């Protein structure tokens, strides 16, 4: 019988040890976790900033352009706003609408008449959907306008493109009226 008691007492001791293990207070130092101390100022990262070309527009100078015909609307628009005709797109589409093709033909004709002028074609989307898809959509819109002009004989070297996706709406509204204005490709004169 003594043997069994011994065995039992060892067993009870084991149980007690296991139980005690759970009670140990573990010290966890939360200090020094680097991710909490985020030191960020990417305005300070100068080297990357200097590598890129900075686009600078001279707003003071009134440009003189060759006119399609005396006092035509497109040349007036170019002088007043620094832009050629803007074209618009259907929702989630990047093909050029038939009714906009005349505007693009005018832009092409004008650019051929003013060979010293380069333009930046900005592609935009409305606010619906995801930013990333809309950036790609704006890119497709800008590119399809560029290739249309290229097919009309405008040197593609004069046409650069950028997409702003849904990030720079023309109209800040939230309905089809605003959206239809925002789905656009704009021609910004660069020189």
């Amino acid at each position, binding site marked *: 019988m003594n043997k069994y008691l011994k065995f039992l007492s060892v067993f009870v001791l084991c149980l007690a040890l296991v139980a005690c293990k759970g009670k140990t207070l573990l010290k966890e130092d939360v200090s020094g976790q680097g991710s909490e101390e985020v030191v960020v100022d990417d305005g300070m990262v100068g080297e990357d900033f200097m590598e890129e070309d900075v686009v600078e527009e001279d707003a003071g100078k009134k440009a003189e352009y060759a006119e399609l015909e005396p006092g035509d609307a497109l040349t007036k628009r170019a002088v007043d706003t620094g832009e050629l005709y803007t074209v618009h797109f259907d929702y989630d589409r990047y093909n050029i609408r038939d009714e906009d093709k005349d505007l693009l033909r005018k832009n092409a004709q004008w650019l051929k008449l003013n060979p010293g002028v380069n333009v930046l074609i900005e592609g935009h989307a409305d606010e619906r959907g995801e930013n*990333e*898809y809309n950036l790609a959509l704006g890119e497709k819109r800008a590119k399809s306008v560029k290739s249309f002009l290229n097919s009309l004989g405008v040197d593609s070297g004069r046409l650069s493109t950028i997409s702003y996706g849904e990030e720079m709406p023309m109209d800040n509204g939230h309905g089809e009226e605003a959206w239809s204005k925002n789905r656009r490709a704009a021609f910004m004169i660069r020189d």
Partner: protein
Amino acid sequence: MIKQKLSPIYFILFFLVLLAPATLQAKVYIDLEAPSIRQLPIAVQDFLYTGSPARNPEEERLISSIRAELVDALTSDIEFTRLFKVIPKEAFIEDPAEDRFAGKEINFREWRMIGADTLVKGRFQIQGDRLTLDVRLFDCLRERLILGKRYIGSISNPRKLSHYFADKLYEELTGRKGIFTTKMLFISNATGNKEVYASDYDGKNVVRLTRNGSINLSPQWSPDGKKMLYTSYKNGWANIYMLDLRTGRDTVVSKKEGINIGGRFSPDGKRVALTLSEEKSPELYILDLDSRDLTRLTDNYGIDVSPTWSPDGKKMAYVSDISGNPHIFVLDFPTGKTRRLTYKGKYNSSPAWSPDGDKITFARSNTGAFNIWVASTNSDKEAQLTFEGNNISPSWSPDGRYIVFSSTVRGVSSIYIMQADGTGLLKVTTGVGNETTPVWSPFLY
């Protein structure tokens, strides 16, 4: 004789075999696999300040605000899971000032009387700007300590100490890792420009990560949570950058001609999936961060964006409009084959692969508004998770139990969290305003 001698030994051995697993393994208080989960009743007593007495009203206020933060963070974490029934403080019988912190001092009967199966008690002290928190979880039915921890942190962020304890409490009671120390990245235009922000998972403790005044989009965590990829116009064009969240070092990842957007780290953190347009259509590529080798994944006239890696890195889901409208496709790297995942809806976007690998959540629009959906990756099952408002940009919690997304009403966007089955919708308040594209971090500790 022999029989008589052996039988008690057998009896004891049998007993040992039965008991050993029960004592060595923690009891599972909440079985997350169970078809229906009974909420575990828990009482969280106001933590007791046991440091040197306050010398003036200012110190008094500091102590009470730290107490409030500690208890609020822990209680919110517990309530967030919807796995607990938090006993209201008004029901408590024991006065917190009594300082009964050891199991043998606690009158567990009083706690059982108010229905508290479990009890959390805490004591804290302040030394300079250091905050020390001792916190214990008791089983009131078995009258024993389940968990005891001490945390030392800064008085500037008491919530963090409670989040640490909440992680441990959750892990102890469910056997799974807690998400209470995880974080979120998101975009807000509160300053007038879209900048990247980080916050705790609950929207508190906000830090602004970019301040370049241009347009910043698509923040993404590195798998170790130490770096962030983002798309920025800070140099005039849409390029991808990587920000080291510890050192603040910012580097260019991709700045090719055309758009450089939507970078996503591979699960091993060595490669980045991204969309480049150059002279072509927007196509998906993989950039090896060491060798700078670029591998093109798609080649078509349409749009290919928003990649998401499967957790094993063998597959990638993405959005393509190759079928006429944006749909989600899955590319299998070993075979090189692409499979279309979605057929319904006019616009499917922003897929996010679940941490367990068998689901993809995404946003879908049929007519106008978008809603969050989830699709199985190994069957053709789909389920709609949201039904009201305009909901986009879903992202999984690292344990796969929750989905964070943004919801827009008339141009103003907010962050919401729901359980992965679409229940338990909760608005996340960051205090920043107009938050979009929330991205849940991986486990950070």
